[in-house]
């Protein structure tokens, strides 16, 4: 009987204490209570530095039923203060940041360093480490978000498209906060997808000032500050080196100077230590690419081994130039932002040990050899005596 009474008393006290611990008028023990219809989901955050204050611009993105996106702006001394100002401010609904997909940092804010942004992403309980980070090459994030947001478009959707399509088109690769933080922590350098504001003829029909966001290479970050921006060749080379080149169209000329469009279907990179006289002197990179013929601009004799070898060689030269451009940029900055050293070390840790320290400090002097092997796998050639050019001449085997 006493035992039962003790049990009942303990349970009653536990229940009362649990309820009282809430400190909340809604009889909940969680302060995280939010009604679903009282929240607004922020999908993109733009960060700028404006007259000594941090400016945060948020965008919701297009609704599921085509609802117009909403944008909000707030300012504060710090990023956290600006976000808090937004939460406590004039908004009828409470913004939540747990579904924020993209952060776009304005050029001026980027120049001041992205450390505080990454720190906020890491510390805030709502923000996810898998948020995609972009740097706007020119202009403010507020401008980018507001000008790209209209009745049928939003900056969020544009950035989502860039994430999906940039690697396919060889225009870049979107890194997440986690990727950038681990790269900065490990190598002291990182790559961030750069974007630019461009005119958009499709969107200008609804708004003359409407713009669009397009991928524009990478921003190379050293210790959290942008050290350089890559051009088109370097961007493609970097994609090869980081292993994110999915597929790419390449135009090369055959022996008759006809343009042949090749599709790179597979690429395989190998990173080995470069040895000379038994000593490791650098890195040896070999790249094997597989190609399909997508389009021929003239009577190309694809059945001919010699012709195919010419195409393969020229394609290989093109890829080599792209990879070399990326390596040269990294050497000029003395930063191995592509992680070549790490890949060589993973392949041959004992051999890499010989040059490990020097790789960090004297990267510029390291010898990096690149070899590209390309092979046309499929020509999709439809056969003999078929006139593909429409000029009455036959093509095919004689």
């Amino acid at each position, binding site marked *: 009987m006493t035992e039962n009474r003790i049990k009942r008393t303990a349970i009653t006290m536990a229940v009362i204490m*649990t*309820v009282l611990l809430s400190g909340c008028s809604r*009889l*909940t*023990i*969680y302060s*995280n*209570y*939010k*009604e*679903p*219809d009282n*929240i607004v*989901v922020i*999908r993109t955050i733009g960060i700028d530095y404006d007259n000594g204050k941090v400016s945060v611009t948020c965008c919701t993105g297009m*609704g*599921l*039923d085509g609802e117009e996106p909403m944008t909000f702006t707030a300012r504060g001394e710090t990023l956290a203060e600006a976000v808090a100002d937004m939460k406590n401010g004039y908004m009828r609904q409470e913004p*939540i940041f*747990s*579904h924020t*997909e993209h952060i776009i940092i304005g050029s001026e804010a980027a120049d001041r360093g992205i450390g505080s942004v990454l720190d906020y992403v890491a510390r805030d309980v*709502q923000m*996810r480490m898998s948020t995609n980070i972009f740097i706007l090459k020119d202009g403010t994030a507020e401008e980018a978000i507001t000008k790209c947001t209209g009745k049928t478009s939003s900056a969020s959707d544009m950035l989502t498209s860039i994430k999906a399509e940039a690697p396919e088109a060889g225009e870049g690769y979107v890194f997440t906060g986690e990727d950038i933080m681990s790269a900065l922590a490990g190598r002291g350098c990182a790559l961030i997808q750069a974007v630019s504001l461009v005119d958009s003829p499709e969107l200008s029909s609804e708004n003359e000032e409407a713009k669009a966001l397009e991928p524009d290479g990478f921003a190379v970050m050293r210790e959290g500050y942008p050290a350089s921006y890559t051009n088109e060749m370097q961007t493609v080379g970097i994609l090869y080196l980081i292993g994110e080149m999915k597929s790419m169209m390449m135009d090369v000329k055959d022996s008759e100077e006809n343009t042949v469009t090749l599709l790179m279907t597979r690429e395989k990179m190998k990173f080995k230590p470069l040895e000379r006289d038994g000593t490791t002197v650098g890195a040896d990179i070999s790249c094997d690419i597989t190609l399909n013929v997508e389009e021929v601009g003239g009577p190309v004799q694809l059945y001919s081994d010699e012709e195919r070898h010419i195409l393969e060689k020229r394609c290989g030269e093109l890829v080599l130039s792209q990879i070399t451009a990326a390596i040269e940029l990294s050497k000029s900055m003395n930063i191995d932002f592509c992680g070549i050293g790490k890949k060589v070390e993973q392949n041959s840790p004992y051999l890499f040990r010989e040059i490990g320290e020097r790789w960090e400090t004297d990267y510029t002097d390291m010898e990096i050899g690149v070899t590209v092997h390309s092979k046309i796998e499929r020509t999709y050639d439809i056969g003999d005596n078929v006139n593909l050019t429409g000029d009455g001449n036959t093509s095919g085997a004689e």
Partner: protein
Amino acid sequence: MEKEETRVSLKGIKDSFSGCYDYTERRMSLGGEGGIEATVCFLDGLVSGEAIAREVIKPATNETRFGGVSLQSRAIELFMSGVVYSSTAKLCTGLNETIEYMLAGFCAVVFDKAGAAVTFEVKSPVGRAVTEPKEEKVIKGAKDVFVEILKTNTMLVRRKIKSSSLKFKQVYIGEQAKTMAVIVYMEDYTDMDLVIEMEKRLAKPQTDIVLSASSIEEYLEDRPKTPFPQMLRTERPDRFCMNILEGRVGLIVDGLPMGYLAPGTFSQFYKVPEDIANHFVVASIMNVMRYIALVITVLLPAFYVAVAMYHQEMLPTRLLLSIINSRQAVPFPAALEIIAMLAAFELLQEAGLRMPSTIGTTVSILGALIVGQAAVDAKVVSPIVVIVIALAGIAGYTVPDQDMSAALRVFRFLFVLAAIVGGLYGLVLAGVLLICHMCSIESFGISYMEPFSGDKWRDKLRAFLRLPVRSTKHLKPELDPERKEDESD
């Protein structure tokens, strides 16, 4: 000093049944006119008049059989030796004993001067025929069902287990009515402690008459206050026999069209007779699906509340946007929405049970239209809540046992309340408390969570999988008396 039992007499029987319109007497002279006077007493309706006439009165008035008999004691001897055709003949000297037999469907031939009566079983065949099961339907398997008559039920069991070690131990329940019941067990391997315990518990009921299941269940269960059923109740003889062969003790009560089985464990309520009829792979998959449905029915509404109110970051973005869209213009908080829909679902279910079948369809249509369509169109509830409740309800119908299903519905509400107060934290806390509660229940000395609480993985797997018949023993390890002895050693 014990009062001596009153000897049987015609006057005593008449006085006991005074005011009973169904009490009937029939005087007869044994061996024809001039023979010994005896009176056949019976309760019309309980007995078959035709059987009395054919089996008792006709042979008793036959001159060849009883002609020349002058002493009532001699007549009684002849009655007991089989001169009368009835298959049962019991000699009663006490008035109460005679009345008990009469109430059990016997007729009593009273010899007033001798102060004795001979009772013969002549029960009326009136009673419900053995039909198809209504609650426990199966596709493959026997389709007979228990009825209200005890003898028919024992016959159904005996037909399935043709073994002399199958025992039916007769007991009487209740002070006044003395309802007859039988304890069923296999003498060879059922733990006799279970049988003794069952008998002990059956001696407890102070109820006068057993007319409903709850009259007896609350006395037999270890923890009557918990909503979880602790004894399996089945209307199917094949399921009853399957459990008897596993080592359980059964109870069949006269007047109740069901059999009880003890001890009852949680996993047992999730097994259906069809499992043994189907291929073991199919049966195992269906069993696993039932457990998944258990999780859905108990946790889905609470999980929705927790995630929608507290943990929106757990949802995929598009789903969250869809929920937000669907809740636009709904005036009630998410918590109230869920509770109201759960209550509406329970009301519909109750109404469906009580409604005559002729207008049952109308209720279904009204329910679907009002609760489903109109409420959503009027923005009283959001469509996502209707889907959540419907899914949880459908999952609840996969529970094979109705008592277990009812218990789970109670806990569904409790989980929703816990989620409203504490989000996922509250939900998990409620889950832990529920599991602790279930682990604390015992049924006839066996843990309610067997075989989950067992040591061996093979035993735990038995709960989810139906192993091939060739590789399983009928007798369940937790019911094996030898295992109990080993454990106590």
